[in-house]
């Protein structure tokens, strides 16, 4: 019951946040630049054609009606124009790219496998690497291993992912000829090729994030190991492995999960950079192309979609909290 109330409360605030973000995004990208119809009207653009294009896209309406139509499209889909020339955009309609003649939702869905492949693989790798290195560093505090991990982590925090990525391409791609230097192969098409193309992006993203997680985990672990209940656990004769793995790690993971939720959300931003470095046709590449072509509906759609992912990630973190830490539940 309590959990249910928590979930519904969080869901409500999620929807509120998304509404505000969508309104701001819509105002900035569709209403500020003047006339989006002008952009897709073509040349020469007669006044009559311009008016037609405007009416077709729905830009002849007052701004709040345009925004409401956009919101309606998200839930019920919408149709642009009428008669034989009409295009339908099925729900959830994130908008329609008149330049590509495709619904934004479809364009996003086409690119998701690439971006998610990069993101999920990297996230798994950096959690294992980062938390592992942090725990070992804390347990063997002051050892050579600890110092090496912390030095590495300071360096890793300062290295931009694209720099590391390009150096990786230079070393492992061109010089050693071990991995492909760019591109993406679908998992369903060629699983080995998929893995091979993703190894380098995963490692680059994982190394940089692992640096942050190693520091965080180490700091938390040191704090937790000084707590009374750890002494109790040791006093009752538990093996050190069990003390660290069961009793300490569970408490260490709570702040790690918080950061992980934030990172998962912003990973999409990071994916733009990774995809540019490795020339992969994901969501980031879609966005950069949209910016290049001034395809405003597409920009709005991608922005909103990533806001949705960020907020969803935060919501999931809140839920996981309740499972990992019973104290939060109170």
């Amino acid at each position: 019951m309590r959990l249910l109330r928590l979930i519904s409360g969080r869901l409500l605030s999620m929807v509120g946040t998304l509404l505000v973000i969508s309104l701001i995004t819509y105002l900035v990208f569709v209403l500020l630049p003047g006339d989006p119809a002008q952009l897709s009207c073509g040349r020469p653009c007669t006044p009559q054609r311009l008016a037609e294009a405007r009416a077709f896209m729905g830009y002849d309406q007052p701004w709040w009606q345009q925004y409401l139509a956009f919101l309606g499209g998200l839930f019920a889909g919408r149709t642009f124009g009428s008669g034989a020339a009409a295009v339908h955009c099925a729900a959830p309609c994130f908008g329609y790219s008149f330049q590509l003649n495709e619904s934004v939702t479809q364009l996003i869905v086409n690119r998701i496998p690439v971006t998610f492949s990069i993101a999920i693989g990297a996230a798994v790798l950096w959690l294992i690497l980062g938390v592992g290195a942090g725990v070992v560093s804390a347990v063997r505090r002051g050892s050579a291993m600890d110092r090496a991990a912390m030095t590495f982590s300071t360096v890793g925090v300062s290295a931009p992912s694209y720099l590391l990525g390009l150096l990786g391409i230079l070393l492992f791609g061109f010089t050693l000829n071990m991995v492909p230097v760019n591109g993406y192969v679908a998992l369903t098409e060629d699983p080995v090729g998929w893995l091979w193309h993703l190894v380098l992006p995963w490692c680059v993203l994982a190394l940089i994030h692992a640096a942050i997680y190693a520091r965080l985990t180490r700091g938390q672990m040191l704090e937790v190991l000084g707590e009374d209940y750890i002494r109790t656990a040791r006093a009752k004769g538990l093996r050190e492995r069990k003390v660290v793995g069961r009793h300490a790690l569970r408490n260490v993971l709570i702040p790690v999960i918080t950061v992980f939720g934030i990172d998962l959300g912003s990973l999409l931003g990071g994916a733009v950079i990774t995809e540019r470095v490795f020339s992969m046709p994901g969501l980031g590449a879609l966005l950069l192309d949209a910016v290049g072509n001034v395809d405003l509906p597409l920009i709005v759609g991608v922005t909103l979609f990533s806001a949705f992912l960020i907020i969803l990630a935060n919501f999931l973190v809140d839920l996981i909290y309740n499972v990992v830490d019973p104290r939060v539940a109170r």
Partner: protein
Amino acid sequence: MSTDTPLAPPAPARPPRPARRRGVRQLWQRLAADRWAVAGAGGVAFFLVVAAAAPLFSALGGHDPYSYDLDALTDSGAPKGFGGGISGAHWFGVEPMTGRDLFAIVVHGARTSILVGAGATAASMLIGVVVGLTAGFYGGWYDRVVTRVVDVLLGFPYLIFVIGLGAIVPTSLPKPLLLVGVLAVFGWPGVARVVRSQTLALKQRTFVVASTALGAGGWHLLVRQLLPNLTATIIVYATIKIPAMIGAEAALSFLGVGVPPPTPAWGRSIGEAIAWVQTDPMFLVFPGAALFLATLAFNLLGDGLRDAFDPKTAGLRR
């Protein structure tokens, strides 16, 4: 946190002035004893000097970052000679396709990075501290509005949004100024959140309660009682924020939506180097090393400062 209170005497028990002076001296001693922090401070000083005297340095090399030198290039546009055209005339080689002096570009790039990084940090710290302090202090509906706005902005996919802005911003607008503004808009919520929570904690402390009982006004409490106790947080946060802002500017320039050409920017050079990784790796290495070292220096200094302000030993933070 609860365990160290009996050990550290509460700050207001002492007369404020000598305590503060001793705190500063202690801080210096701790900082000077930390090798990495000293190295970081040295690096920061170095990059500040380079940024301030960029024209001087590039004049020393004999080139400015804007003039083309097509004689230094082969017919395909790649630099002539070893290591991307490194020579007595071009210390770091030249830029492919244009032949502009890479040393001058890297040196002037420091200026762009540090100006944008420091400007965006200053703006977001100013907004964040003012908003966070007042929200934590006054509470009520104002606090609720601030918390809500902060939540929305932190949930905003800011990198995606800023990249998108590249499509609609009129070219007449000075891009570096716009970058500072945009980075500040998305940078202050984090600061406000930290400052607000610390203000909430400080408000309960005896010295603030005593001041209030003695009839101190809101302005006095904010500026003379609360703000000095937030100094450590603000300094540490700002030092860590600068490299983050430098990184953000470089990332945007790398993607082609940051500082536009011909203004030298490390991130943009690295972005252009993608096409030349195989044929001219030095074009990647020099701007990349500069960006990495500058970020590292600020991070080391920030870490050192945070350790020096450590609450468990100094009682200055929190």
